């Protein structure tokens, strides 16, 4: 899908996406790591905070425990009177601000009769010390927890906290210590000593716990009763288990069980006040088995990270935008010249080389490309200029060549019938020049009134040199034949002339014959040319035997052999150049001497002009569609004899 998008879009997408990915990875790692760090710190802080509070509570409880414990020892010594005991108890309540009340409850069935059912209780009420003897009250104190539990357990015990309306709505807990007396050598339970402790101070210790905005601490008793909590209605009214039941929160119940079992721990906890996720650290107060828990609001702890994260995200997005802009800028600086160059290339393709190319100042790849483009345009322009010139000069040369060709053709005798006043023979020739100037030529002329010289020649090579060589050869032959009727002689002379100073090593094949117009005898010499066909009036058509001598112009001093042939009336000689026999069709097949012989055979008896035209037609038919590579030259010399047959 990106295939059709521009470079800019691709780059922006790619860089922004990969940049975004990197950013996300770094961000998540950072978030995770910093969160873990804070959680670790939080755990340490939580422990320290909770333990310090627990220690304060512990200190208060332990200090209080000492009083009845010491008093129990004193009681067990037995050296006191009721009065001294009452005074001591009263003093104890009076002098200890933490003590709300204290009692010595002797067992009703105690060993020592004098102490049976004696239960003095001093307590504070509106700043005064009040006294009551619990054994005189209408209720049986032996059934109460403060008495029964330490008695049955044989050890001191802290009571479940309670709410004392009579004392002015204060929370209290009672520490009870059993004491014993020896009777007849056995240690027997003698009663319970109690001190009532005002819990307000301890509650303050806990309710003063503030962790950030919403964190708080709460204290539960051994039964799970909530002793301090931001929700007032829970205090002394609910156990943690009741809250769990009301909220159908099995996890809370499990936490509560751990707390009352005296375990410590840090756990994630959904605050029942704010419903926010918190970390809760809880640890027991060893002295009385209560448990203190402190909630550390997770959201607030990670609030800093969160706000930092928001900044980081904003920065990251800004960075990505900036990156996209930068990429867009770079992409544009690359793509714009490229686009312009593409347009320029299109324009150049239409042939307009004069347009301005985009200027690229940078020296980067695009700059190099623009430079190369500029160079290419200029080279093209230069090349086209040269090409135009070359074409012009070539056209000139071609026109000159055409003129040369016309001149060349013009030097050949082209008026037929050539000798209208000579009925004893007839001659007809045709030259079908190839596109290029060739070297074929024919000629005929009268050496004297009874001797007709005819020439068929083919100069090696093509073009202007060939045509010039041809002109020279033709002129030489005509000149040399003027003083000599034997073709072997004048051909030798022509050869010598041609060979002399033939720097270009050109040569020419020549068949030259001299017809005695009176006798019909033909003397001929062959300088390397294709043997002509002898067309007999009666009989066949055959290639002329005889020595094919060497080509003219190759070397000096060559002698040619003159041979004789008698033409009867109506016989004819068919001369041609290899342009005929070597004419090729599309398949590169040659017209061939056999085919020529056959065609001439078929056309035998026709007027020579028709014969030549007929052969020419056949050749053209044969070469249908294939370009003509060589001049096609044919000439027929027919002897009619002295008396022309009618």
């Amino acid at each position, binding site marked *: 899908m990106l295939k059709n998008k521009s470079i800019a879009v691709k780059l922006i997408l790619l860089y922004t996406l990969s940049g975004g990915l990197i950013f996300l990875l770094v961000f998540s790692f950072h978030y995770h790591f910093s969160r873990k760090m804070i959680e670790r710190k939080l755990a340490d802080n939580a422990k320290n905070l909770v333990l310090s509070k627990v220690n304060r509570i512990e200190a208060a409880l332990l200090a209080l425990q000492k009083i009845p414990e010491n008093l129990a020892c004193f009681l067990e010594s037995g050296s006191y009177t009721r009065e001294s005991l009452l005074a001591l108890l009263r003093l104890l309540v009076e002098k200890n601000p933490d003590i709300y009340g204290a009692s010595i409850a002797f067992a009703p069935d105690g060993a020592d009769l004098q102490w049976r059912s004696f239960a003095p209780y001093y307590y504070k009420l509106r700043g005064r010390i009040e006294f009551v003897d619990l054994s005189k009250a209408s209720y049986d104190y*032996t059934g109460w927890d403060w008495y*029964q*539990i330490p008695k049955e357990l044989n050890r001191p015990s802290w009571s479940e906290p309670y709410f004392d309306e009579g004392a002015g709505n204060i929370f209290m807990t009672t520490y009870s210590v059993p004491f014993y007396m020896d009777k007849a050598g056995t240690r027997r339970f003698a009663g319970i000593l109690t001190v009532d402790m005002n819990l307000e101070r301890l509650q303050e210790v806990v309710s003063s716990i503030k962790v950030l905005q919403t964190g708080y601490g709460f204290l539960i008793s051994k039964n799970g009763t909530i002793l301090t909590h931001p929700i007032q209605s829970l205090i002394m009214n609910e156990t943690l288990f*009741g809250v769990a039941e009301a909220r159908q929160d099995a996890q809370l119940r499990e936490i509560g069980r751990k707390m009352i079992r005296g375990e410590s721990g840090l756990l994630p906890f959904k605050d029942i006040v704010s419903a926010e996720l918190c970390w809760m650290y809880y640890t027991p107060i060893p002295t009385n088995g209560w448990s203190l828990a402190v909630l550390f609001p997770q959201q607030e702890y990670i609030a800093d990270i969160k706000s930092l994260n928001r900044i980081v995200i904003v920065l990251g997005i800004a960075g990505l935008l900036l990156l996209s802009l930068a990429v867009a800028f770079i992409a544009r600086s690359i793509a714009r010249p490229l686009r312009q160059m593409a347009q320029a290339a299109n324009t150049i393709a239409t042939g307009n080389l004069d347009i301005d190319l985009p200027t690229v100042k940078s020296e980067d790849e695009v700059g190099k490309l623009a430079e190369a483009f500029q160079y290419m345009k200029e080279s093209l322009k230069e090349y086209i200029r040269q090409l135009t010139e070359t074409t012009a000069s070539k056209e000139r040369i071609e026109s000159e060549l055409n003129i040369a060709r016309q001149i060349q053709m013009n030097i050949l005798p082209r008026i037929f019938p050539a000798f209208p006043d000579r009925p004893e023979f007839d001659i007809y020739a045709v030259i079908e020049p190839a596109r290029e100037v060739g070297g074929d030529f024919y000629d005929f002329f009268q050496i004297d009134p009874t001797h007709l010289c005819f020439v068929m020649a083919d100069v090696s090579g093509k073009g202007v040199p060939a045509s010039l060589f041809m002109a020279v050869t033709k002129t030489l032959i005509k000149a040399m034949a003027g003083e000599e009727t034997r073709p072997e002689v004048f051909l030798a002379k022509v050869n010598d002339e041609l060979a002399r100073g033939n720097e270009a090593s050109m040569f020419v094949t020549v068949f030259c014959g001299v017809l005695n117009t009176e006798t019909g005898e033909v003397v001929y010499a062959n300088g390397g040319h294709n043997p002509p066909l002898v067309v007999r009036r009666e009989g066949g058509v055959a290639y002329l035997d005889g020595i094919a001598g060497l080509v003219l112009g190759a070397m000096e001093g060559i002698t040619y052999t003159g041979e004789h042939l008698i033409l009867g009336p109506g016989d004819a000689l068919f001369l041609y150049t290899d342009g005929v026999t070597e004419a090729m069709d599309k398949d590169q097949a040659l017209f061939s001497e056999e085919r020529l012989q056959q065609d001439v055979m078929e056309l035998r008896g026709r007027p020579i002009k028709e014969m030549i035209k007929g052969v020419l037609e056949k050749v053209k038919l044969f070469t249908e569609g294939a370009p003509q590579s060589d001049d096609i030259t044919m000439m027929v010399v027919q002897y009619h004899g002295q008396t022309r047959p009618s």
Partner: protein
Amino acid sequence: MLHLLVILFSLMLGAGSLPSDAHAAALKKATFIPLWSPQAQFAGYYVAYEKGFYRAKGIDLTILQGGPNQPPNEFLEQRKADFVCMWLSAAIQRRSKGVKLLNIGQIIQRSALMLVAKKSSGISTPGSMNGKKVGIWGGDFQIQPRAFFDKYNLRVTIVPQSFSVNLFLRGGVDVASAMWYNEYHTILNAGLNPDELATFFFDEHGLNFPEDGIYTLEDTYKKDPSLSCAFMEASLEGWHYAFSHPDEALDIVLRYISRAKIPANRVHQRWMLERMKDLIFPRDKKISMGTLQQADYERISLELMKSGAVKTIPDYRSFFVRCGRDAEK
């Protein structure tokens, strides 16, 4: 601990009474005292009152506040209340002592009294209680446990149990007495799970003592039987309403609790109301709500005889009066 004394004294001096309606000219005046201080154990009566069921039956009722030192039998005998809620066992004993009281409706069909032990103390069967310390409440609460120990031939150390289960929770006793709708839940909500506890329901050990019933004096009934029947009908209607509208019923009960200045705990009251439903609806669907079954009556009487609490068993027909028409809606 002083606060408890204060509560006790204050309860003795003046029972909190509810103001009677001024427009009740045509209504018959009557008073009722529940067995204990306000809680869901008595939801049906409070709901019937608040929903106007008593007024609809022509009664201008006053519900007196019950409590630990407000024994209903005294209120009945001293004619301080026309109708009282009492345990069946207590009522039979009073009747055999000559108090002419009548059961006009047995609300609770099954005994809610139970023994509870921590499985961790090795108690899982009645036999495993042998030699253990067992917390027992006084009075009528001890009849069933003692019969239970006899039945299983157990020798246990009996420790008087007071108002809390803390002695049990701290390990001072191995077995505690508990009311299913009350102390048992307190134990659960002190962090002990049901699967950690071994429970012994007396009705599952052939000692079903149906508890709360409604009593009036014979002459009160004879003077105006329709009043007693109207009271019963309205009360049962109240129970039906409470069970089908538990949240509304709890709201009413909690209002009474806070009026009595007792810590209110909705979760606990909900548990209690749900258990009351279990206890009040007779298991046998053919028996209508509020019926005292003769078999229960005779079983209790027999056990009371065995324990020496009663010398004679009053006749069932002279003890239980069933109103002419079915009280159920």
